[in-house]
């Protein structure tokens, strides 16, 4: 049986990759994908710990996270479409309307 530490290490690697993607990428779609990567790394950690302790709580929680992530993507993609329509661009470095 694969050790829990391995899953956690994989989860950390995935999270780090996702975080790097969010910080570095300029295309919001790719940022979204990176966010998904982070969410799924968290899911992986949850599932790993659920298996470790023999509880189903973590696994059920993962379902919620997946559901929420799907909803978030739906809203996020809609926003990206709306932004593209107004600015003809989806480069997130062009989007700094909230500058103080």
């Amino acid at each position, binding site marked *: 049986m694969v050790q829990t530490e391995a899953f956690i290490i994989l989860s950390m690697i995935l999270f780090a990759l996702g*975080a790097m993607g*969010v*910080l570095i990428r300029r295309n919001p779609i790719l*940022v979204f994908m990176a966010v998904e990567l982070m969410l799924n790394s968290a899911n992986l950690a949850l599932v790993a710990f659920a298996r470790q302790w023999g509880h189903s709580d973590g696994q059920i929680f993962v379902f919620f996270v997946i559901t929420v992530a799907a909803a978030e993507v739906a809203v996020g993609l809609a926003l990206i479409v709306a932004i593209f329509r107004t600015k003809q661009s989806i480069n*997130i*470095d062009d*989007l*700094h*309307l*909230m*500058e*103080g």
Partner: protein
Amino acid sequence: MQNLALIAPLIVLIPAIGAFINFTLGPRLSERFVSIIGTTASGLTFGVAALLLVYLHNNFYQPVIVNPPLINGTWISIGTLEISWQLRVDTLSVTMMFFASLVGTLIHIYSAGYMHGDARYARFFAYLNMFLAFMMLLVSANNFVVMFVGWEGVGLCSYLLIGFWWDRSRGAGWRNSNAARKAMIANRVGDFGVMIAMFLIFWTFGTLDFYKPNEVVNVNAVQRLAEGGADDSHSSLLLTSTAAQEDHGEEAADGEHAEEGSHGPAAHLEYTNNDHLALRQMGVFGQTDRLMALGEDETIDFGLGEMRGRTIQVGQYSFDISLMLVLIVLFLLLGVAGKSAQIPLFVWLPDAMAGPTPASSLIHAATMVTAGVYMMVRSNVFLYHSDVASFIVTLVGVGTALVGGFIALGQFDIKRVLAYSTVSQLGFMVAAVGIGAYPAAMFHMITHAFFKALLFMGSGSVIHGMEHGHHHLHGDHKDGHDDHGDDHHDEKAHHEEEFDPQDMRNMGGLRHKMPVTYWTYVIGTFALAGIWPFAGFWSKDEILADAWEVGLIRGELKGFIALVLLIAAAAMTAFYMWRQIEMVFHGKARHEAAKHASESNWMMTLPLIILAVSSFFVGFINVPSGVGIFSFGLENMFGGLHSLADFLEFSIAKFHIPAFQPVLAIMTMIIGVTAMFIASRIYGGGRAVNKAGKDPLEADASTAPIWSIANARMYWDNIYERVFVQPFTRVAEGIAAFDWNILHDYFHDTILYKGFNALGSFLSRPVDLGIIDGAVNGMGRLVRGTAGLLRQAQTGYVRVYAVMLFLGVVVVVVLMLLPMIRG
């Protein structure tokens, strides 16, 4: 019959309602309707008074205290002070109610004619009704405070009626309203005395009630009644009524006492003395009697375990109750001097004649001015127990009688003569109260109400006739001023010449023009002058007989003073009244108006006739024993000898009636007739006023100095002008100058205005702009500067926020992990 007394509150309510209707709806109603409302209210009041008289008659003249319905009587309740609207139905109050409402009703009828055409007709009737309501409240009160409410109320109505014609032209309006103010101010001085007296009474006795329920007023009288009234010297209305009740059998008595009927009238009396009452359960007069009976160091149970002695503690001073009584009576006397026009406050009454004649007649002759005498009679126990105070009361009364009579000798205004005569007669009453002749004072008050009301209304009729004559005179060349009535008051301004319809110098010879007025006036004169057998003879003689008894038989100085000086005043009364008859009615007309004068209409003459008849008969309500056939047996119409006195006996604790003094009666008669004869010799035969418009006494060098003093009203008003009015004016002017020069110019302009400006500019510039604005603006600048620094953190780039987020997470994680690493 117990329930009949419960109508007592109506006696205040009915005229109050009449006044209310006339105040609110009156101006929209016709004259006829207004006068009907006013007169009906007054007539119903008289009816209630008559029913109360019947009640007392059936109830053996025992007083009863009636609680008004709905409000349950309580007015003020503070600690031990309990003031209630209780009405006291006893012989004294019902006597006052009866004659006041009777005279009042006649004057209402008279006013309906006299005030015809006046612009404020409804208001006049409303005032009259309001006056009647307050008068009834005054006499029916069972404590000093409610009495004082009535006292002030009648004073207010008096003020309103004196100044009723405040808007007359040619300065007459000013005179009227000044007269009203004078009355108000003089009465204020008196009311101050009444208030002080009330404070002292409350302090001394812990209550202001005259008598409490179940308290016997006159123990002697009640015990005599309980014994079946065997005293044959009191064969009176009382005993005839008791006899009648017994004749009619037991069913005439109260149902609850029917089985005890065999005991006779005594069975009706629950108590015949006050032994069952603690001091606290008694009114002020009962307490006075008990406290005065104590020895030097004795004490008596006050009730609720408190002991009371003769010593009264006021602040740090303590003095004997007799001294307290002197103070109370003297302060009450000040009130009497105001209301009943005694020295030194009488000056308002002659000026009060500025009001319409019916008001003069009702308020300033018959009823209101007797309120002071009523209060003194009510307070007879106080007077009885303080010789010093009653001596002063006697002196004031006698002095007033003399001064009033003397001044009346030199007056030309028909109403002014009567006004000073009223002052003089009120002096008689107060003197009577001073010597302890309380029933005599009440008797004279009643007879005086009738004949003085008659004389005033007669004078009103004369004035009316003169004005009519004056209009007739000018109606010839002016377009029809022949309508009579009081609208001439405004028209008077159109006439070129000044004409005073009240000046007796303009009259003369009215005897044939106004026969009804003339004959009723003569009857009133005889009654006032005390000519047998008219009312004034009996009442004045009663006072003089009492003075005779006190002065010559008991040998007290005050009685002797009263006897001698009151006879002198009576002589003056006869003299000035006959002078007036000669000037007004006899001789030849001295003015065109008098030639064309005519008799007044029936609404004015009918009350004159009724009052003239009354002025003859009213004297027989109190005929002393021993006059034999000289009273024609007419006293039997009113229930026998001394019936008024016997009636009042149950309300006057210190009751006392004098024996008839034949010598005195003959002497006063001779003096009166002689005075009138001298007057007719001086003023008769067309010599009433000489060609220069002078009084014969004025023209004669030997009497001129004395006459001019009387004419100048003994300089009384001038002295007041000098002593009070002018210094007052000067002080007022001084204060005004101080106000203008110091307060306004210096204090207001310099200190307040400039100081305020300086302070204002200091506060506005350095303080407000510098400190306060600076603080507020500085705050704004600080916030803006800080925000300018902070906003640079907000780049708007998502990435930056994400980095921040991650850094934050890292920091949080590190913080969370730190304890683990250490541990």
